[in-house]
């Protein structure tokens, strides 16, 4: 199979660096170029020494590499629409970060653009390619628990805002400056925007969609942020499954400009744990464990060193397969729309102080 000529664009998203190894090693890809949002992003990209040229202008990148077939949009949420349009108009396949946009009119325009262009648009929800999640999905599908009654899940991390400042800017993260609630000085665009995975996962596990959601924010752990960093959400799915989610930035961090060892203050910087009760039993699942552990340099703190997880390998494999074999990705724009709607409903619930029906 002819390798897919691929590029990256933006280079400001927290997941940007996670693509480098896969793009370089996967023989089904030929990573030919990157295009940084600005000089600062270009400087950070240079630290990783990929050997792949980096531009500051997408048109200039395409002029130099007219054979680019696909682009990873590794950018802030508010840049996605313009970049998707740029790609779709040129027939370039798209791998979007996990939040295409929270503006549902813009979201529908994205769907139209992609459909009209006939390009692949895959949404990056890397948990699907995690081996533990694969086992979890198999166990549920095989009926190990029977009908699911309840799903509780954490999707908790440190806050990336010090390394990726756009994640703390309401306009860049949420797309506009919308107050969380009357009398609350904070705005939409924080931890919730960073953590769609569990909202997506429950849909795959139950085969149902969201029926209602209630959400509540807590006082920020980082009072200087303009966006929420702590919240909880509960509700029901259309099949009656109850859920309770914690999508917070509840693990503290060193305020590094570039992610590096010692970033975490709490030993485990990222956790996705799932507890499921079914009619026949119960399970508990740690999607990122076990690992290896140390308390060495740089800060001599007890630290989880993630060990087994290469989600980006499977994610890119699916993207290439969809491009070459004209398939629809599992996480496509139309599928993901309901997840984004549910996340918006969480914000509506915070604003209105009541459960929101979807």
């Amino acid at each position, binding site marked *: 199979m002819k390798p897919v000529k691929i590029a990256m664009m933006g280079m400001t998203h927290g997941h940007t660096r996670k693509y480098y190894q896969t793009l370089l090693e996967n023989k089904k890809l030929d990573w030919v170029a990157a295009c940084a949002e600005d000089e600062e992003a270009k400087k950070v990209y240079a630290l990783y020494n990929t050997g792949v040229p980096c531009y500051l202008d997408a048109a200039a990148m395409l002029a130099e590499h007219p054979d680019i077939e696909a682009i990873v949009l590794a950018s802030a949420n508010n840049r996605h629409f313009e970049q998707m349009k740029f790609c779709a108009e040129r027939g370039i396949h798209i791998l979007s970060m996990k939040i295409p946009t929270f503006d549902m009119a813009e979201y529908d325009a994205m769907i139209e653009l992609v459909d009209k262009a006939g390009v692949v648009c895959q949404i990056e929800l890397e948990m699907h390619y995690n*081996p533990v999640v694969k086992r979890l999905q198999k166990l549920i599908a095989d009926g190990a628990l029977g009908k699911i009654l309840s799903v509780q899940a954490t999707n908790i991390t440190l806050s990336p805002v010090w390394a990726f400042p756009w994640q703390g800017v309401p306009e860049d993260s949420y797309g506009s400056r919308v107050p969380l609630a009357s009398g609350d000085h904070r705005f939409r665009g924080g931890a919730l925007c960073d953590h769609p995975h569990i909202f997506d996962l429950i849909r795959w596990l139950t085969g149902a969609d969201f029926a209602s959601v209630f959400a509540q924010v807590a006082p920020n752990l980082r009072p200087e942020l303009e966006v929420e960093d702590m919240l909880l959400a509960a509700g029901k799915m259309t099949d009656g499954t109850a859920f309770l989610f914690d999508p917070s930035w509840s693990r503290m961090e060193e305020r590094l400009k570039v992610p590096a060892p010692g970033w975490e203050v709490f030993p485990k910087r990222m956790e996705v744990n799932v507890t499921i009760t079914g009619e026949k039993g119960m*399970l*508990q699942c740690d999607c990122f464990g*076990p690992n290896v552990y140390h*308390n060495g340099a740089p800060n001599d703190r007890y630290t989880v*060193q993630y060990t087994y997880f290469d989600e980006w390998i499977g994610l890119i494999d699916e993207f290439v397969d969809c491009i070459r074999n004209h398939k629809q990705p599992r996480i496509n724009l139309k599928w993901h729309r309901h997840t984004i709607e549910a996340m918006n409903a969480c914000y509506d619930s915070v604003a209105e102080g009541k459960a929101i029906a979807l």
Partner: protein
Amino acid sequence: MTIKAMNSALDFLRDKYGVGPGVIAEGPECFQLHLSDGNKADLLPHRVERRFVELKKIIDGKTLEGISTFRFAVFRPHGDLRKMLAAELDLAAFLSGSEVSRLFAAGDGQRVCNVIFRLANGVSGCIECSSGLPTAAPVLDRHEIIARRGVASDRVVDTQVPQHSIYVWNEDGTATYTDVDTELFGLSDEAIWTVRAAFAVLSQPSLAACWNQAAQASLRQAEAALDCALSGTPVTF
């Protein structure tokens, strides 16, 4: 663990990453990779097992400074003590980049053998090794590296036994799952690391000679440890 399934998995990786041919086969002491040039490479799966690769990164990257002692343990149901010891001794050499230079052992020579060893670079270490677990028991092991600056381990603090990613409780009892490799999902851990070891040799052919030498050395050391357990005389290499 069937060789057929492992070779299918190896073919999948070879095709995906564009590496040359090779076949996994049973060797006299361990699984081997038969190379297209007629050579054979002893496979050392622990050298590619991710937890050990991460521990080695922690050492080589100076996350730990001033390594003092390795404390290893492995307990299996009906294991071959000689091979169990060989794997742990080779792991010590692999993690440290230094050879075992001396050892002393105590045990019954069949089901139990506790070893204290020293590496050529001065690092000290021990292995608690037993094949005395009952048949249905899971393999238990632990690898702790103690340094002047920091301790690293493949077991989380305040636990004695390996943890799992998933625990299921239903009418069939309790079941646990720890899946570590999406590309090779469905194979046992042992098969996964054997396939990964074969793939490592195909990707880096110079490993073949290095691993053959290491496999022989660690088996000799393990045999010496079992002899020492009976004689009570320390062995210097």
